[in-house]
């Protein structure tokens, strides 16, 4: 089903950790349409600023849930939504993870809020009998929200915190590197983490799909505000003339947000 504007209603709002919100929404058509790795643009009630890009964290029955950090005025406004409030969501948007192969052994690396993009692919892979190992890192224990849902979904969960307050001390990529290579790597998190994942993928020759983030303008491909350099030969490169170095700028919102590590030229 094509993306469209969904007029939805908030069912519940919960602060899962200081500054980390989970908003549960009644949105049957959206829930039915979503593909793992897709996102929505959540429209602000005040109408004074651009909509906010948020991963579709979970989707089941007629429910969709969003999991987000309060990082600025727009997410603060979304965090003020209460049960019963209406909320317009544009979506589902973007190309999700390519899960056609579903190899036997998949590793997923999630850093911080990146966790919001990987529940749906994890669940889909488990359903299709992949072994799924989740490597989940955050600054400290309190921010490791939602690990139970992954256990319930059938993932093997390894935790890492920068301050050592839970799981391994260090970056989630340290944990990933210390483990046996999988057949496929999925990752979502801050850019430095994704760069590290891409290096691990290259070194271990495991294909990696990275879910990127950037500050979005439109979220639908209309403004070219969210690009990332890719090889002009990549299937996701816009069919535009590339520069002398063979680089094109692809839109994260339209050609992504998921890219193969090897096509990126960042």
């Amino acid at each position, binding site marked *: 089903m094509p993306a469209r504007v969904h007029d939805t209603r908030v069912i519940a709002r919960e602060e899962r950790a200081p500054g980390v919100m989970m908003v549960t929404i009644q949105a049957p058509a959206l829930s039915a349409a979503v593909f793992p790795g897709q996102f929505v643009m959540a429209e602000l009630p005040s109408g*004074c600023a*651009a909509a906010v890009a948020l991963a579709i964290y979970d989707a089941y029955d007629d429910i969709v849930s969003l999991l987000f950090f309060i990082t600025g005025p727009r997410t603060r406004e979304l965090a003020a939504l209460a049960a019963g409030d209406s909320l317009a969501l544009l979506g589902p948007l973007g190309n999700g993870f390519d899960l056609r192969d579903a190899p036997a052994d998949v590793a997923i690396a999630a850093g911080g809020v990146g966790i919001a993009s990987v529940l749906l692919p994890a669940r889909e892979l488990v359903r299709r009998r992949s072994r799924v190992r989740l490597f989940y890192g955050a600054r400290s224990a309190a921010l490791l929200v939602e690990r139970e849902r992954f256990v319930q979904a059938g993932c093997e969960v390894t935790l890492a915190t920068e301050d050592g307050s839970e799981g391994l001390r260090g970056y989630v990529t340290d944990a990933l590197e210390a483990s046996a290579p999988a057949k496929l790597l999925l990752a979502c998190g801050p850019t430095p983490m994704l760069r590290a994942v891409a290096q691990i993928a290259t070194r271990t020759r495991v294909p990696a799909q990275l879910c990127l983030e950037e500050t979005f303008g439109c979220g*639908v491909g209309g*403004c070219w505000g969210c690009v990332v350099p890719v090889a002009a030969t990549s299937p996701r490169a816009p069919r535009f*003339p590339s520069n002398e170095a063979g680089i094109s700028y692809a839109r994260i919102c339209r050609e992504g947000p998921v890219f193969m590590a090897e096509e990126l030229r960042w």
Partner: protein
Amino acid sequence: MVSAEDARDVDLSVRIGGLRLRYPTMMGSGCYGSGEEFARFADLARIGAIVLKSVTRLPRLGNPMPRIVHTPSGMLNAIGLQNPGIDWYLEHEIGKLAERPCAIIGSVAGFSVGEYVEVTQRLAERPEIDAIELNVSCPNVASEGETFACDSRATSEVVSAARAATRKPLIVKLSPNVTDITVIAREAESAGADALAVINTVRGMAIDVERARPRLGNVAGGLSGPAIRPIAVLAVYEAARAVRIPIIGQGGIASLSDALEFFLAGASAIGIGTANFTDPRVPERIVDGLAEHLAGQGARSISEIVGRANVGFADVHQYEGDAG
């Protein structure tokens, strides 16, 4: 109460040079792609025109990331005119525009008068293009950091040259980053513009205080959205007093009431850019709202309210409000 029929009878059409738009709403250049990107969320048959992303003679990769920063009631952008260049554009992109159910306006940017002329001519030749908008608020390599639209002689030159290159309607898009917009507006009019688009973005920047460096890859960018609306309304109000050609008012329009401010200030049509990022249903809501509002006032066409609040200025002593 206003009946649906009354609202339907209101004439919202507007004329820009020889071009008639069914609705007075134009999607701002650079904000609406080529229309295809938004066609899933908005009914293109219910908008007046799409102004395409600006095209240059040569392909441009655009600025480094980040290209967008959100600010209070607005956003900064520094895309840097990423576009495939006119050759590729004509060969691969333009054909797709034929089926759009609204007018299509090509936007031209350049770094010299020659570039403007070439791109204007080649774009305007194509039947898919109904009019040309000159984005003269973009970098002019000849004089450091200045833009054509910041210099009245340069504006005059580039508009005259583009005028000679096409008979299709010619819109000149003005920058607000000038001491007196009426000077540039008059130059553009006498050089042959059929309409003025007022305003492009306002120059601004933001700094990442944690990393102590500019947030935008390009350092400076253009501010758009509701934050700049008061600046844009004044620019339209002043330009409308200075010229006789129609003005397409834009800058922060997100609601019916915002749109009315621009018409009342003297705009014949409006541009909607950033509000599409807030909610792609805004343009349709505005058109519906306009029809209903005008019907409620017993007006038969949008032209009846154009400039109705433009009563001039108090007196010279009190002109500059920022004297505070």
